[in-house]
């Protein structure tokens, strides 16, 4: 179920990237698609009835049934890079607004088709 939901999020992100002309909306679509990908990668490591991969006084032995920690570590990396890319993209949008006075792709190009 969560896998279908994450694939749906990726599809929504792709639709936004293809159809929108506002630069901020494009950045938001990119973020939605990225969220879907992250959810999907985490779901690939789910083990039915699995414990969180952290040893504690309650979960105290490595022979127990854990979920896969590797996708979680990879998604941690992906989230941080996503934040960095979003910040860079938004600052570029600010610069575009400064020099063209608009963030609509149509008006920047100058054609109204």
């Amino acid at each position, binding site marked *: 179920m969560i896998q*279908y939901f994450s694939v749906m999020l990726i599809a929504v992100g792709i*639709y936004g990237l*293809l159809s929108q002309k506002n630069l901020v909306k494009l950045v938001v679509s990119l973020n939605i698609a990225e969220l879907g990908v992250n959810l999907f990668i985490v779901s690939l490591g789910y083990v039915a009835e699995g414990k969180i991969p*952290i*040893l504690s*006084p309650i979960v105290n032995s*490595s022979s127990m049934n854990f979920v896969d920690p590797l996708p979680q570590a990879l998604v*941690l990396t992906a989230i941080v890079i996503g934040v960095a890319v979003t*910040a860079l993209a938004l600052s570029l949008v600010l610069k575009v607004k400064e020099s063209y006075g608009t963030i609509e792709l149509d008006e920047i190009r100058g054609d109204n088709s």
Partner: protein
Amino acid sequence: MKKVVAAIIAFLFFVMFVSILNSDSKSLMGIPKFGEVNLAERVSSRYISKSVSEDAGEIIYGETNNAESGSANMVTSIVVNYRSFDTLGEVTVLFIATTGVAILIGGGKRQRLAISVNPILKISARIIVALLLVFGVYVFTHGHLTPGGGFPGGTIIAASTLLMLVVEDDKRVSKLLKFLEGSMGFLYVVIGIAGLIITGSFLQNFLPTGTIGNLFSAGIAPVVYSIIGLKVGAELSGLLDDFFAEEEEK
């Protein structure tokens, strides 16, 4: 018309992906059914039992001494121990991105906010900022024992900076943060090279790993995570400060 084509393409992607998910997983040899993962077949089982180089037997919380990676949080042991090189690259990407933002929009004067802030709000914000800073430091120093680590801890510190920037109209982030950011990145590489000299491979653990579950355990994991926490906190604070800079007049 364009939107219809976009919707059709997105829907086709959805159908294609769902049909891959529903197909027989043996023919695709990649995507397992949800929840039916056999962890023993995956490389992660070695990270969980901490037996990448040799079989360590069962790892028990509070008892096992000098395991390969002594961190109780297995995600931490992957992020800063087994795959620390990956994290070094990630920190580099974050550094380059924040530098790019600073080049593009930073440097101007502090932007004035349109609203005036109530003094009660200012004083209570200072109390919350102090608590947030302490909590951020707690999160990244206990990254090897509890959920969290350098990146969440650094983000919490940056959140406290954001609160301060919103409440105080004339404050800017200290220039020392740039120095902290650079020196912490340098220290990470120094630790890697120390591992190279002492053990023979870059970023390998060279400190004793101690008993699993203690604060002073897991070798270089808490050290590296503290470095990452300070670096990410300083970096994201500088990033937020850049977004509060005034736009240049043309």
